[in-house]
């Protein structure tokens, strides 16, 4: 008994001693800077243990280390009032700065219809608000009469970050590099472009690939090329080639940390925590032929956050200025929290909805090859619940914007005759209608387990999208719930992105979710092609569309004829017919409308962002200040104070 009491007393004393020592240890670290704190603590340690020389040496080493850390921290710590912070555009350390790479995860590189124009630049910029195309490195483009050769003139003021002039040799070298080294860009555009040749120093001809009838394969894709693909420096490509001994694989994976680029921002700092791009004050675009000035912020920085929640917290604290993330109930940030945060629109849907995340059916699976099953799932799905809860209201409903192959912009919707589609629309949550449709098709439950069968097999499917994509995950849950109501067993499956991508692109899924082309120069055609094109179904690995291998001859004939149509009436008839097929056959269906990019801007440091209500910036698309014509936003920013 005595022994136990003694033990207790000793343990109490021990705990007290530890607590006191911890408090004493923390007491000295009142400084706000971490680097300072580290130094103070090491100094303190050095003083007490000065007698021991070995330990003192250790401390010195630690101090030097701390000093080095401070130095690299200095580089990363750019002045707040010269830096615009971003979130949601890069989620891991940068692999490379190489536009030819197949695994570029670099923030500055996004070669799509609205190319990211901060470091590299494309020839032209697409404005998804009004559908206009503005010259960037290119000045004008014209087609010959039969649309087989596109002539592009170049801006004579343009030059690269190393001072060398940009001219037609660079445009040719860029194309040749993509083709010779077999880059992803080369692989996709070699189907549509035969060659690019220089006419003079500032004029190039893009020769379209011709089909057997002597027509261009697809002039629209040539137009996409000039708004999507970056132009690289001929001389720099030679340097990269030389240092890799001309090996194509090595060249494609070259890090290009020292990249010569034409855009206004260059690689300045990159670590696993943060990437920073610094303005090139010698940027050619300050000439009057382009912007007439430099972009306002000197630095563009992107902290690499662990997840959405971390990014959102940073936005709320004013540490992030432009946030490309899905934020639940985004309006609460200003209505309830009173934060100086705003979006493109002040009310729902808050963003500029341009894309249509789509539910794809694998039409090779038992049951999903039947229109009735596909259409029943679409009819039973509660779209208003998806809009209100999965998308948190940040979308148009299908009542506001009826379904068709066009996205919810006038630029595309002018080609659809909605009167012809009225009877084909399904509003969703129509469980009775869906059940009746299935019963009528003879697809019923014969063994009494509550699940309908087709060819003797239960209709059981997995609905798949990448894990952590919360709005998509919730959407698929709502579709799975709809399946239960109509006797179709749908379970959700959320694998890692890479594994999902494999499944989707090799047609190894039942029901998948993916977004076809958004708003770009040939967006309407590309999206329609993504829904129907049989060429895509024939590819072994296919990123372009028709993931579910749906084959419809009529649709393909229409798709093939559209690129050569010149009259708006013909185009309208064609796209309306495609929409009819889309709604009748349901090879896939749109689950919601979604912004091309989410964009919540904080006015804690910067103001005058693109906003629909701001006359000065209302024609700048809200593409997070970086993409396509949205880059113009950087030239209008102002400091709050």
């Amino acid at each position, binding site marked *: 008994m005595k022994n136990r009491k003694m033990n207790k007393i000793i343990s109490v004393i021990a705990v007290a001693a530890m607590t006191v020592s911890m408090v004493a240890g923390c007491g000295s670290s009142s400084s706000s800077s971490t680097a300072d704190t580290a130094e103070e603590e090491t100094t303190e340690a050095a003083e007490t243990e000065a007698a021991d020389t070995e330990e003192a040496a250790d401390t010195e080493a630690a101090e030097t280390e701390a000093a080095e850390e401070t130095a690299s921290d200095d580089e990363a710590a750019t002045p707040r009032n010269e830096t615009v912070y971003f979130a949601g555009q890069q989620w891991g350390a940068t692999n490379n700065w190489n536009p030819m790479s197949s695994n570029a995860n670099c923030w500055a590189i996004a070669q799509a219809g609205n190319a990211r124009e901060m470091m590299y630049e494309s020839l032209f910029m697409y404005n998804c608000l009004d559908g206009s195309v503005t010259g960037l490195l290119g000045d004008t483009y014209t087609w010959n009469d039969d649309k087989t050769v596109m002539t592009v003139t170049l801006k004579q003021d343009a030059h690269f970050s190393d001072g060398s002039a940009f001219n037609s040799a660079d445009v040719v070298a860029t194309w040749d590099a993509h083709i010779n080294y077999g880059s992803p860009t080369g692989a996709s555009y070699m189907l549509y472009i035969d060659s690019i040749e220089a006419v003079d120093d500032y004029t190039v001809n893009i020769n379209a690939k011709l089909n057997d009838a002597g027509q261009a394969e697809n002039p629209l894709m040539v137009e996409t090329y000039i708004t999507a693909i970056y132009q690289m420096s001929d001389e720099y490509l030679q340097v990269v080639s030389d240092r890799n001994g001309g090996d194509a694989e090595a060249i494609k994976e070259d890090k290009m940390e020292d990249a010569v680029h034409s855009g206004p921002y260059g690689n300045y700092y990159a670590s696993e925590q943060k990437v920073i791009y610094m303005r090139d004050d010698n940027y050619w675009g300050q000439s009057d032929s382009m912007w007439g000035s430099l972009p306002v912020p000197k630095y563009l920085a992107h902290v690499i956050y662990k997840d959405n929640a971390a990014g*959102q917290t940073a936005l709320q604290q004013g540490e992030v200025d432009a946030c490309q993330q899905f934020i*639940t109930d985004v309006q609460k940030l200003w209505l*309830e929290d009173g934060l100086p945060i*705003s979006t493109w629109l002040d009310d729902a849907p808050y963003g500029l909805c341009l894309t249509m995340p789509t539910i794809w059916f694998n039409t090779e699976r038992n049951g999903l090859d039947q229109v009735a099953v596909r259409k029943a799932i679409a009819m039973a799905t*509660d779209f208003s619940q998806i809009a*209100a809860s999965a998308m948190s209201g940040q979308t148009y409903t299908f009542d506001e914007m009826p379904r068709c192959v066009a996205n919810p912009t006038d630029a595309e919707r002018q080609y659809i005759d909605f009167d012809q589609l009225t009877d084909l629309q399904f509003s969703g949550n129509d469980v009775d209608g869906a059940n009746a449709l299935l019963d009528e098709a003879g697809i019923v439950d014969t063994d009494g387990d509550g699940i309908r069968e087709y060819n003797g097999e239960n209709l059981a499917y997995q609905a798949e999208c990448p894990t952590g994509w919360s709005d998509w995950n919730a959407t698929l849950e709502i579709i*799975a719930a709809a399946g239960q109501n109509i006797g179709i067993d749908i379970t959700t*499956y959320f694998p890692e992105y890479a594994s999902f991508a494999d499944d989707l692109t090799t047609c190894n899924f039942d029901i998948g979710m993916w977004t076809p082309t958004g708003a770009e120069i040939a967006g309407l055609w590309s999206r329609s092609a993504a829904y129907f094109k049989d060429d895509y179904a024939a590819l072994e690995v296919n990123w372009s569309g028709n993931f579910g291998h749906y084959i419809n001859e009529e649709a393909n004939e229409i798709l093939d004829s559209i690129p050569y149509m010149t009259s708006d009436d013909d185009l309208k008839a064609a796209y309306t017919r495609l929409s009819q097929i889309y709604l009748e056959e349901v090879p896939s269906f749109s689950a919601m409308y979604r912004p091309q990019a989410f964009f919540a801007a904080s006015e804690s440091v910067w103001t005058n962002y693109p906003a629909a209500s701001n006359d000065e910036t209302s024609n700048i698309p809200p593409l997070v200040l970086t993409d396509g014509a949205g880059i113009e936003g950087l030239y209008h920013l102002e400091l709050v104070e």
Partner: protein
Amino acid sequence: MKNTLNQVFHAPKFLIGFIIFVGLIGFCFIYPFFTDKGPLTMYGNGNFFPPGTYVNREEVVEDDGYTLNIERNAETKIAASLGDNEIKGILTYFDLAGIDYSGIDTNDKVALVDLWMENYSSDYSFKTTTANKKLFARIQSIVEKAQKDTGVIIAEKNAETGELEQSETITGTSYSNTSDLASVITFVLGTDNFGRDVLTELVSATKASLRIGLLAGCIATTIGLLLGLLAGYVGGVIDNLITFVTNLFTVIPSFIILILISYSVGDSARGVTVVGIIIGCTAWPWTTRSVRSQVISLRNRDHVNLSKLSGHSMMRIILTDILPYIASYVVMALILQISSGVLAEAQLSMIGLGPATTKQATLGLMMQWATQYSAHLNGAWWAYFPVVITIALMTFSMNLMNQGLDQVFNPQLRD
């Protein structure tokens, strides 16, 4: 037996744990009798509706109502509609527009609004942020609404002409009695990101989690007990073999095995039962180890040797001479296994490897969706806090019971 039970229920820790546990289970079984809501039905058309009673607005408007001599006056209207953000906005506007408000108490909302009405103009002469401009416009519309005393006009569309016809004007003295209204719905804990009633979901989830815990606990304890008895009593090669396998499982973190198995069985197969079985099958090693060591210390006791000399079968010796001596220990192990089963389910569901969301609510799934829709950043405490409390209460009560039992059965801890 009676004496033991008496002892157990006099151990304060056990009693407290028992009361919490029974209370929790009792609530879960009684609650469904008082509600007709489904745990997975999506009621709310939106994310995270706050707790409270919801009244059908159409019904309120159609209700004849009562006239009370209590005017919903401008002051209360303004106080109710202007929050701290809006008041801050008004002051910001005054500062920017150079309006002197030094004579006004900034807590006097009516005076502030009067000054606002006198001075506000939508063509700002000063430079300010878009957020501020939007805030000022919002304040103006709130103030205009609060200031007007014409009442709300109810109009209906004429079916023939399509024109609006005024049918009624609702004034500030018109009230509805909530007991006259048929469509009054209370969400005690609000709704979640799918619009489901959190309380109903929580009750269903607690039951499911307990089922998983119970199943997992029983399986783990049974496997652990059998292997432990066998290894401890038989010894020799069998002991070596079982110890080897047990060590193997102890070295590999069981959660990793849990993840791998859960992943490989696939989503469609992962119901409550399967998840329970998977957890049970990975949690047994520590029970085996401790039962084995207990049995080893028992097997050379005199009474066991006597039994052996009397020629009793191994089965009989284990059942009558060994098991009763470790029974209390096994019960305690079972309780701990149940509680860790509940936690394991929560962990699994948090990373998306639990049961399917559309088929069964579980505590882990509720946490997962609350996190995915950032309930913790949006102040939607009702979507995750009750879940955390429930998990904590469940495991806490079981641990308390376990400690109470320990106090009764462990001779070293007896006073």
